[in-house]
């Protein structure tokens, strides 16, 4: 190594004093709000994942058998017009078959007073509801297929009534 190179480097690379204004610059930089990183792509991904998870959970819930008994109890006290007004057992059974896709055998003559029928949708299931009065008290019979893709023969029933249950059962069982 040449001595003169060593001399020049030693001469030119000497330490220097920092300018007085450096501290002010640092303080200003520290006080300034940090530049926010671009977060929207992360937020978008999180939103999509959350939405997908929510839909997945809802789908899972849809596959889980819900409480038909609870629904019957709720529907018993719900006021409002029926989807199909008829006192004719055959007509009501036909309507239930057409709209809820499930067979229900109602005797031609029954001691109860049939008011009509409605269709309820829950978790992708179609549930037929027959409204009637038994022993002068309101009653409702819910009927649905065992599964959305199941055949019409496998059914779930649930009955709710304000009067005696034996009387309400006479909708089908005389």
């Amino acid at each position, binding site marked *: 190594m040449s001595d003169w190179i060593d001399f020049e*480097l030693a001469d030119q*690379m000497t330490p220097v004093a920092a300018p007085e204004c*450096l501290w002010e610059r640092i303080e200003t930089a520290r006080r300034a709000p940090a530049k926010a990183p671009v977060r929207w792509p992360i937020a978008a991904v999180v939103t999509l994942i959350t939405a997908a998870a929510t839909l997945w959970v809802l789908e899972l819930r849809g596959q889980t058998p819900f409480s038909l008994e609870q629904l019957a109890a709720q529907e018993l006290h719900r006021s409002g017009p029926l989807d199909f007004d008829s006192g004719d057992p055959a007509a009501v059974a036909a309507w239930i078959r057409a709209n809820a896709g499930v067979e229900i055998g109602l005797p031609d003559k029954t001691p109860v007073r049939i008011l009509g029928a409605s269709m309820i949708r829950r978790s992708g299931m179609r549930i037929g509801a027959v409204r009637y009065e038994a022993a002068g008290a309101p009653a409702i019979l819910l009927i649905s297929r065992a599964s959305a893709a199941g055949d019409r023969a496998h059914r779930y029933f649930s009955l709710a009534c304000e009067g005696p249950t034996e009387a309400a059962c006479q909708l089908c069982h005389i």
Partner: protein
Amino acid sequence: MVLQGSDRDLLDACRRGEPDAFRSLFEAYKNRVYSIALRFSGDEAAAMDIAQDTFVKLFSGIHDFRGDSAFETWVYRLVVNRCMDHKRRAWRLIPIADELLSALKAPADSLNAMLREEVQVRVRAAIDRLTPDLRMVVVLRYTEGLAYEEIASVMGCSSGTVASRLNRAHKTLERRLSLLANTRGVDRV
């Protein structure tokens, strides 16, 4: 000013966010940080940017210092990394422009002064053309006077690598400034 026995107290005070502690730390290291930044970049504005970034990073990351190495080494690493980052970001002025600007600023009141200025400008330009790794070794060696082992610790390489880089830097400068060496020889006589 050099931190000595009260290093840990000062660091603890910084970690608690005490403004006076930050100021003390700044006072202790400002000249060293700025010198490295200036000697590496060769530009005062760039050196201010590098020094500012270094101290902001130092203050915000003071909790990251675990004491695995000397605090001084940690600070050196910060400024070396800032220098390298800055080098990657910045567009370099072509050396001839640097020389021209320096020549315009140079006082030309005498022939000797002009010659001396010319030598300095050319040496500076030759240093600027070194690769960042070679230049940083030169800066740490000549500006800070660090030993090979200390430079190796700061740059994360072996002492042998430091020696090799320094040797390559000398050879490169010698080759690029060979004409100047002859001029200096005449000047000395």
